[in-house]
């Protein structure tokens, strides 16, 4: 038997509520829910816009492993290496040029509010700069 998960659509700012219908760990369809803004309606992105999670590899590939550029080429690495390398390089740049030499972005798309809160906290508290912004402007 499948399950139905109530969530908010990942596309525009209308905030439509929908159910993702899951079978064997895969999303197979979506059903409109009776949300405050959508009242049981969805547009075509709400109806069909979940398929990227199945990674059909039409345009681009889902990223499944951290990568570091070594000698000009991106190579897959383990998380430990990716995290410590990133932290080292950022610390180096901070030590050499100061915290304001680093810029970070938030994301207006999938990650959600909590991830944005953590990102701005990281930039402000760990890096020490207010250089954080996102594509609201673009």
């Amino acid at each position: 038997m499948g399950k139905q998960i109530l969530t908010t659509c990942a596309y525009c700012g209308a905030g439509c509520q929908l159910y993702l219908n899951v079978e064997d760990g895969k999303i197979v369809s979506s059903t409109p829910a009776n949300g405050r803004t959508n009242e049981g309606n969805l547009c075509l992105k709400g109806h069909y816009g979940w398929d990227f999670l199945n990674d059909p590899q039409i345009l681009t590939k889902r990223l499944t492993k951290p990568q570091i550029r070594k000698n000009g080429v991106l190579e897959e690495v383990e998380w430990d290496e990716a995290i410590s390398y990133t932290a080292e390089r950022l610390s180096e740049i901070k030590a050499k040029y100061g915290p304001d030499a680093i810029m970070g972005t938030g994301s207006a798309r999938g990650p959600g509010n909590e991830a944005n809160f953590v990102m701005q906290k990281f930039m402000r508290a760990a890096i020490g700069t207010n250089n954080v912004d996102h594509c609201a402007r673009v």
Partner: protein
Amino acid sequence: MSMGIPEIENAKLLFIFGYNGADSHPIVARRIIKAKQKGAKLIVVDPRITESARIADMHLQLKGGSNMALVQAIGNVIINEGLADQKFIENHTNGYEEYKEFVKKYTPEYAEPICHVPAEQIREAARAYAKAETSMILYGMGVCQFAQAVDVVKGLASLALLTGNFGGPNMGIGPVRGQNNVQGACDMGALPNCYSGYQSVTDDAVREKFEKAWGVKLSNKVGIPLTHVPHRVLEEKDEKKKIHAYYIFGEDPAQSDPDLNEIRETLDKLDFVVMQDIFMNKTGLHADVILPSTAWGEHDGIYSACDRGFQRIRKAIEPKGDVKTDWEIISLISTAMGYPMHYNNTKEIWDEMRSLTPSFHGATYEKLEALGSIQWPCRDESMEDKGTPYLFTGGKFSHPDGRGKFFATEWRPPCEVESPEYPYTLSTVREVGHYSVRTMTGNCRALANLEDEPGWIQMSPEDCGKLNVKEGELIRVFSRRGSLMTRVLPTERVKPGATYMTYQWWVGACNELTTPYLDPVSNTPESKYCAINLEKIDDQAWAEQCIKDSYESIRKKMGIDTAKKEV
């Protein structure tokens, strides 16, 4: 938005300015149609005949880049014809006399040659807007993506102040924001000047509160906006002001930002670029580190809808591959840098945010579970506080004295206008089937089939005739910054001289052409206006092959086996 989305259908008049709901937000557009069915008057201001314009009572088909002149001409008529709400102005606003004086010269006759809208039509629109029982303004990127953008927003708000269209239901002013969580990223303080809940980084008391909670000294210097990054990398002479590292999270500036040539140069010049995302993208091709994260559907959290509505997202499936949630990745890097951050789930993060943010304090996970959606401000944790459907109740505004402020200023033409060499204008727009840079929709089978590379350029039939091009033919488009090939789409919806392209295509990437000029306050680029030229391509077979080769080469770079997957 000062109002909620459901209120749209109950307004007596909708004044839709530079906002194409049918393509950008179909489910919001549905409320516009419902409003019309319920008897509302519709006035649409847009250089194109949008779907809303087709059902409008009045369509002011202005020339792109003339918004400020039109908005002030409407203010001029409202004042001159005695239609202003004097009582509201007296009780709830400041700066009326200066506003009145300033817009004096913006008569409809003065605006007509700037806007290419007949003076009499401007008068009729102003009268209808002022006389309706409740008038609601909806605006979109047709206002915001100009170098004169914030002025127009304030100008539109001034029209609502002038007519008392604030403080009650079914009125006000609504920026219908594009992305699912652009409101949320702002709410959470992913902005250079404020923490969560729009608390200023320059306010000592606020900063001390965050310093105490986070146990660290914080900078009181406002950060730099995203759109200044190219300048700070390529042109900044002062080493101390240069940007050396860029941590890009859930964005693709190498596709979405204006003047892509400049962006690529910026990414290559930076000492260190981190890209954290769900799919490989154009920015990733320039990154030093790629951090793969979970996608929507694979993690929990909260989004903010464009009408300030907090709503839950929930994990539906287990992610495939060795990926982590965004907040876990960031916390790990922070910890490795000597500032330990650790959370077990999104609720812990949300609770920390609430404890530091008075206007969101009452929006608990428990309450969201019970109510489904909460529009901020929501200050109190008790179930009594269900949030705030519309702002400025009873005409009380957020300025310290509680009064709304009028604003007027001179209209400025766009930064790059037509010339003999570049006689056409280009504006970037949206289409309904694809979203943003199509990271997600381009990888959904049903949606990818709707439209594909290289995309289209919307042109008037007159211009198509002049250039001797027909529908579907490939055409060369070029500006001072770049050039590309795309397909001709003749349409009666656009005026001669003006062209439109959507911005998700790789081969027909219209941001190769756009200008990096910014609004001085919002730092939003002028994506809605630049000068271009068009050139017929005689050898269509060669052009088709170029498109095919270029598409295949980009997909190969993205790691797609193109031999197996036909273009």
